[in-house]
């Protein structure tokens, strides 16, 4: 019972650290404006920056932020969580990304204010971050699945012998 409690606390700790990793990446890339600096430079270099006046171009910019901010933040948090937590990944990988996003959303709420569009500012980023977390978690654990398959195959051949 004591050992199980230790394991659960350890899992919780790694989930929170994974969440912090996610928050950190969002803070550096979005909060400090690193991704905007890159996109701004790219659009200025190609003389496209004026297009941002239009709503359609804002949607394009939004897709870029999904690809360069939210997906990688989820992926990196999933890499950490997947490396540290080996058991029950399907359940445990839900949380780091969501925790990280909640911290980031709270910080933004206090500094910038509430968002008008809940779908684009909350729901879609959470989904993208969660997808990234799973991709990260399973990237780091993929060789374990390969080994499991190889062991099954070798057991099968031994059985036939």
């Amino acid at each position, binding site marked *: 019972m004591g050992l199980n409690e230790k394991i659960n606390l350890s899992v919780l700790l790694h989930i929170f650290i994974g969440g912090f990793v996610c928050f950190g990446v969002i803070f550096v890339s979005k909060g400090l404006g690193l991704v905007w600096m890159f996109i*701004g430079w*790219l*659009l*200025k270099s*190609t*003389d*496209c*920056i*004026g*297009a*941002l*006046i*239009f*709503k*359609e*171009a*804002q*949607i*394009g*910019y*939004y*897709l*870029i*932020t*999904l*690809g*360069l901010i939210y*997906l*990688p933040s989820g*992926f990196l948090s999933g890499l950490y969580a997947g490396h540290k937590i080996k058991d029950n990944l399907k359940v445990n990988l839900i949380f780091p990304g969501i925790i990280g996003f909640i911290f980031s959303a709270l910080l933004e709420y206090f500094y910038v204010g509430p968002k008008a569009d809940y779908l684009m500012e909350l729901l879609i980023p959470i989904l993208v971050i969660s*997808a*990234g977390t*799973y*991709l*990260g*978690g*399973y*990237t780091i654990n*993929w*060789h374990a*699945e*390969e080994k499991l*398959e*190889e062991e099954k*195959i070798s057991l099968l051949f031994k059985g036939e012998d």
Partner: protein
Amino acid sequence: MIFKRKIFGLRPPLAIFIISMLILSLSGYLIIHLTLMKNLSEDGKFITVKTETFRFNFPRNWYAYPLYENETLCLIYLVNAESDSVAIILYYKSWKQIFSLIKGNNLTDNLSIAISEVNRFFIILRERSQNATLHFIENGTILISGYNASYTIFNIQRAFTTNEGTYNITGVFISLLMANNGLFKIVFYTWKDEFWEDRYKTFKLEMLDSLVIKYGVK
């Protein structure tokens, strides 16, 4: 039978991540580029913006905040390519709003609207920079889409201070009140005084002269 469990030599989740990242980024950039192409002027140097009431061009390498438009107001905010000047177009569509603005500030004509707005801008700046001083350099009339508008050129000394130093602002405020088409307020200013003539010339030629006012207020 051993199944190949790699995509392009990478673990599938990693490959899916990279592909997803590329798809999102490239499709986003493509949408921006296509939007630009759709709204480019004939010579390819300017972006044409069309609202319900007016249209104008601005240089494609100027940064533009998203256009804001509702039933009563239209707001456009631009920063020039050198990032040292700002152009703002504020268009009031609602007569109720225009009326309360004029009556509330005892304004009588285009010039008084322009001067009042410059004073308001100066008061806001002086809250942060106590030593700021305002000078009106020139007043006059200017043609905007065939209508007579009034303008005032102003200079604010010691307008604001940053780590890099203290800046003066030189700008122009244009006001156009039309019987059927609402109220246009156009302001352009720079915090690089030494470039004022050049910046104002660019603004006038490349943006102001392209402004076409189309329809009446509903």
